[in-house]
């Protein structure tokens, strides 16, 4: 009896060892992907970046045939999550969303991380900034507003994010682009676009420079008016609203989010990812999701995304220095 159990144990050890070795062998030599993939989101659940990531994950899962999970690593004004992606093992199984903050945080000396710590995979959404005023205000057009600002520099206030946040950059870029001082409209910091919009309609601030896509209900409800969008071309939901470029200011900015991998992922794996993400982004599911969410899709595959990142980094750095925010 005892002998039998000993033999059984020996067999068990052999089988388990075999399975273990085979497991590691298959992990090293297997085709990518051969296990679930995680996408790290540096912002909280429910936000624009998170919702985009979740839609992409659902679509990517179908393309790749493996589970794609989303994990929110929030905190530190986005630094924690961005750094979690950059420092993850570069094996293609941990990816992350990167947002415009990655081209701003290092100028603000919040972290040493910058866009060069990633392998860009694709830019996904880019919600343009707008110039939004209350319908109770006397300004019916961009020209009205500019005339007032020129006559009363420093009198009006604008809001949208914290100081040095993306919508603050929009204000700085717009005003300096129009040849004014950045402080011709003073910045009132807020915790986010929705807080700024409630201040706008309660009469607490004069202008919101956040994305008009977030203010659509207010614009429809005749509580707010969008005077211009800071996009390369007009956006379809607000066809009547001119771009800043049309108005003579060559400046555009948006809150964008894209997918990236940590630096050092092997070329062969990256190629698989480029292809899979391309198919996922072009799927009907993803396109529908983005369109119905009211986001602005701006798909740029890897190399284009890389160029976009380099340009954003320079432009945003310059804006932050102009405003005296870069340290």
């Amino acid at each position, binding site marked *: 009896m005892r002998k039998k159990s000993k033999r059984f144990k020996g067999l068990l050890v052999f089988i388990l060892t075999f399975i273990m070795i085979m497991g590691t062998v298959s992990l090293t030599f297997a085709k990518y992907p051969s296990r679930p993939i995680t996408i790290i989101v540096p912002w909280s659940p*429910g936000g624009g970046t998170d919702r985009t990531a*979740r839609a992409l994950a659902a679509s990517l899962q179908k393309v790749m045939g493996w589970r794609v999970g989303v994990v929110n690593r929030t*905190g530190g004004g986005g630094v924690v999550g961005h750094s979690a992606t950059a420092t993850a093992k570069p094996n293609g199984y941990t990816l992350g969303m990167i947002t415009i903050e990655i081209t701003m945080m290092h100028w603000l000396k919040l972290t040493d991380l910058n866009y060069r710590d990633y392998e860009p995979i694709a830019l996904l959404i880019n919600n343009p900034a707008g110039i939004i005023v209350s319908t109770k205000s006397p300004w019916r057009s961009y020209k009205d507003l500019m005339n007032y600002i020129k006559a009363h520099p420093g009198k009006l206030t604008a809001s949208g994010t914290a*100081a040095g946040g993306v919508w603050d950059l929009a204000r700085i870029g717009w005003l300096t682009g129009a040849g004014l001082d950045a402080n011709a409209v003073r910045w009132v910091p807020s*915790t986010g676009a929705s807080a700024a919009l*409630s201040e706008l309609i309660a009469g607490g*601030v004069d202008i919101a420079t956040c994305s008009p896509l977030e203010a659509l*209900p*207010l614009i429809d409800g005749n509580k707010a008016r969008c005077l211009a969008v800071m996009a390369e071309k007009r956006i379809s939901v607000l066809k009547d609203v001119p771009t800043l470029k049309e108005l003579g200011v060559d400046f555009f900015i948006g809150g964008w989010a894209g997918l990236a991998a940590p630096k050092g992922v092997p070329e062969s794996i990256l190629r698989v990812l480029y292809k899979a993400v391309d198919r996922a982004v072009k799927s009907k599911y993803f396109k529908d999701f983005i369109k119905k969410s*009211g986001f602005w899709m701006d798909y740029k595959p890897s190399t284009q995304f890389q160029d976009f990142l380099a340009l954003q980094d320079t432009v945003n750095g310059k804006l932050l220095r102009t405003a005296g925010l870069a340290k």
Partner: protein
Amino acid sequence: MDGALWNSLVQLSHPFTILVIILASLYGLFIGSIPGLTATMATALLVPFAFWLDPVPALASIVTMQAMAIFAGDIPAAIVRMPGTPATAAYTEDSYTLGLQGKVRLVLGVDVVSSSFGGIMGAIALILGAPLLMKFAMQFTSYEYFWLALLGLSTAAFITTVSPLKGLISVLLGLFLSTIGIEITLGFSRYTFGSQNLLGGISFIPAMIGLFGLAEVFRNVRKKELQAPLAKIEKGKMLGPALKVIWKYKINTVRGGIIGILVGALPGAGADIAAWLAYGIAKKFSKHPEKFGKGAIEPIVDAGVANNSALAGAWIPALVFGIPGDSVTAIVIGILMLKGLRPGPVIFHQYTDVLVSIYTVFILANLLMIPFGFLAIRVSSHAMRVSKNVLIPIILLMCIVGSYAINNNPFDIGVMLVMGIVGFILEENGFPVGPIVLGLILGPILEQNLMISLIKSQGGVAQFFTRPVSAVLGAGTIVVWLLPVVSFIRRKLSVKSD
């Protein structure tokens, strides 16, 4: 309207919708009763499913889930002194003390009934008063939020049981902790010592789990009789005694409901602040304020009603202006957009059937809360019978998992451990921990709105009093602060004249 009501009832009585509502109820009860898992997270997880659902079941699942989660947060508070959601923090001390006295079923019964009543009051306010409440909320700018936060902090003075000085020290400790991290108005990082984890500040939920839950673990481990269960549970019915308590405190019920509705309608304040305010006001008007914090049932009624009545309120700015009242409604807006229903005044004209369905689900979910809630209590109150040497390791595990789950960041487990030790030491020396949590919640709101106001007015303070609502709130706060001083002087004078 009649047609819309009929339509919505037809849609809601569809077997599939009913199945969704039942599943969402169970999901909400589960999420709410586990500290660290929040209604926000639960809603975000629902988003991919909501894409395939029709608008009515999709919204019904969120409404039901959220209402159940806020109630279920009361369960671990009463059993293991760990508030399941921040909205329960205000009355955790009272619930737990009553639980230790063997009244866990009574406490939780009152929790269910008050949550249900609060939810229904909130729904009625949403149906009848949405435009009016919206007008009220639209008066709120940074000046008004500043006063509201200050008024909320003043309640800390009322909620302290032992010595007001020790309570004040706890509030200040909470306020200090809330200053850690990047300050949003000027972008300075404070007390971060170069740590990127501290940039985002002390995460509020891990801190709360540590202060309440872990501190209690330490206290229990120090005691000898570890074989015994936490408390004996009394037998008998739950609904009857609970209804009796609510009837006895009917004024508290109405008052808590109104506070919840008003606070909930403000985009910058939610269920947690409503509960604290209701607690503070209940103490101010109570005949037995000395019992508060030591196992009083009265504030549980007030705050329990308030945190659920605040839920419906948060939908008002979301539906009318697309401005979310809290993080859950922020996700709701996203789901509405997915369904092609853009929030705004249009929704009130064009999609009345969807709107009426939302109203109906609010009432339905809060009625369902009573049977489901009692079921959850029946299951969970058995934990009180488990001997402590089994229960305590499980609580410790819950503390760790809960504080990790909120941000998926191991650093937060450290925050929880440190706050647990701090909470234990403070309480051993007679300092209450409730005010620390209050300071952590209100500190950022107070500071940000003060800074924003001063930036707007370029340093002027006149606007803190010239706007109509801010004048009322400001005057109210000053009266609250002056009352103790006046009564102190009076007492001195009367002593002299004797």
